[in-house]
């Protein structure tokens, strides 16, 4: 009789524990994931990701920071984007970065630059630069870091 009650009555202790674990795992899976904006970057919409940097690899956010970025024109009329990257860890790190260039209508004026690898010494800053190819006016940029 007692064994019948265990089977058909309320869940056993093991079943309860399993339920709690499964619920926890489901909630963890629902947690937001994806690109983590770097310092100074606006979160959210595509339009918001202009004149800013985004860390595409989420795990980078623990030790890579983008301090600031800016754009100026070169003497030849192309655009030059510079950004300062910090390795806040005690280990050497490697990152790859590339830059998209946009005109005033938010159209990409050329293909994004090729991925460029940068080696960062422990606890150091590095200033990285990327230039556009076209002489067409560039109004904004978007930096990807992975």
């Amino acid at each position, binding site marked *: 009789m007692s064994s019948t009650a265990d089977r058909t009555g309320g869940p056993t202790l093991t079943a309860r524990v399993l339920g709690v674990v499964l619920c926890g795992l489901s909630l963890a899976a629902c947690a937001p994931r994806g690109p983590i904006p770097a310092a100074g970057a606006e979160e959210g919409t595509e339009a918001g990701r202009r004149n800013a940097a985004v860390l595409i690899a989420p795990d980078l956010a623990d030790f890579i920071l983008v301090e600031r970025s800016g754009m100026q024109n070169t003497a030849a009329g*192309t655009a*030059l984007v510079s950004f300062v990257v910090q390795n806040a860890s005690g280990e050497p790190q490697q990152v790859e970065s590339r830059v998209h260039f946009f005109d005033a209508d938010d159209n990409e004026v*050329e293909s994004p630059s*090729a*991925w460029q*690898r940068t080696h960062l010494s422990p606890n150091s800053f590095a200033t990285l630069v*990327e230039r556009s190819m*076209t*002489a067409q006016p560039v109004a904004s940029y978007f930096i990807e870091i992975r």
Partner: protein
Amino acid sequence: MVGTARAGNRPGAPAAAWLLLGAMLAGCAAHGRNADGQRVVYEDPGTVGRVAGVGFESQDLVSVTDRMVRDMLANPALSAAAAPPRVIVDSQYFRNESSSRVNPDLITDRLRALLNQSAHGRLMFIGREYAQAVTDERMLKRTSVTDDGANGRVARMAGADYRLGGRLASLDAVQGSSGLTARHHQLIFEMFDLETGVIVWTGMYEFKKSGQDDVIYR
């Protein structure tokens, strides 16, 4: 008992069994060499692929040419001159002195193509490697074998102002005990004036890789 008697009456059966066993063993040998088969896939030439070693690879080619083109086009002497300078970009003066097996034309052809696509008239490109073809055609026109074409004649072929030169070099180190190999590549590109010899632009790119290199470059 009956079954045994039947099997014993078939002299070909042991031979077939041996053949079957041999085929199975052969199959096992092939299976070990190429366990699950290697499916052919397209890969992004700009990132490290499934086959990677310490040599000069496609992602290096894409990165270095992209960086050099952007650097050249930001140089006012080359891309903001009053009259677009005429340049020769080929591998005539670009040497591969590294221990990596690389066709220098891969590098200079890609540079020229990217530059020509992006310059939009800021630079004029002279195809010096086609000079003989141009000479032959001019001869046909001037001997009236052909007409002058839609563009007509010019007195002389175009001369160039600048030419690309450079070198790919490497520094290698091998650890005998482990077979670990390290290779540092350095690429220097220079654009020199074809009248004065003055170098008006220099670009440098370098990278270092290490690993137990078991990749054969062709």
